[in-house]
């Protein structure tokens, strides 16, 4: 059973638009939700993260919206740039078990 689900699998938006990447989870014990960005040949880099005590986390052009009741979160990338093209992974962490569970990723393509 997939504990962390992401959608869409692939997303293409025009430069300057807002890209919205969705994530949902099953396990209520998850207490930290990082988003990682992966460029080909690189290591996953932490982009932004949120804890369930918050429903929004903003960092520049990146914003996480979190709905604890529905166990859903989304990453919004405003004013998207071609350099944002990458695969984005939603992950969920359980501190008690010290484990990080990844979603399958969303491949984001920003067209100039």
């Amino acid at each position, binding site marked *: 059973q997939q504990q962390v689900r992401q959608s869409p699998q692939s997303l293409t938006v025009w430069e300057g638009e807002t890209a919205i990447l969705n994530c949902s989870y099953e396990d209520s014990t998850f207490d930290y939700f990082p988003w990682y960005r992966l460029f080909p040949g690189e*290591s*996953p*880099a*932490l982009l932004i993260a949120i804890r369930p005590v918050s429903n929004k986390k903003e960092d520049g052009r990146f914003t996480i919206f979190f709905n604890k009741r529905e166990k859903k979160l989304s990453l919004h990338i405003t004013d998207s740039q071609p350099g944002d093209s990458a695969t984005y992974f939603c992950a969920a962490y359980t501190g008690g078990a*010290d484990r*990080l569970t990844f979603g*399958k990723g969303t491949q984001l393509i920003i067209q100039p």
Partner: protein
Amino acid sequence: GALVYQYPRRTICKSGTSMRMECQAVGFQATSVAWYRQSPQKTFELIALSTVNSAIKYEQNFTQEKFPISHPNLSFSSMTVLNAYLEDRGLYLCGARDGTVNERLFFGHGTKLSVL
């Protein structure tokens, strides 16, 4: 800054042979190291979690007999893929956690394993 060096970046091995990959934490103490595998078209699956001074915990479908892990100190971990076959192809990633910064994992660049 904190970094994790993982090597080799790419490796090709013959079916039935074994290969070893290593991770070196720099700039922090890797109190725990998680090893992941990204198979083609799949997410990063957790293979095992190794915590210094504790037993290594393997996930379902992964065993010590197949993926032996060594985590002898706070800066180094290695994992071997024994008797590699086609289904073992993929990107193997180590993520090291700094004991002073909860939840934050520092990832290596991964080891891409191809099996002939």
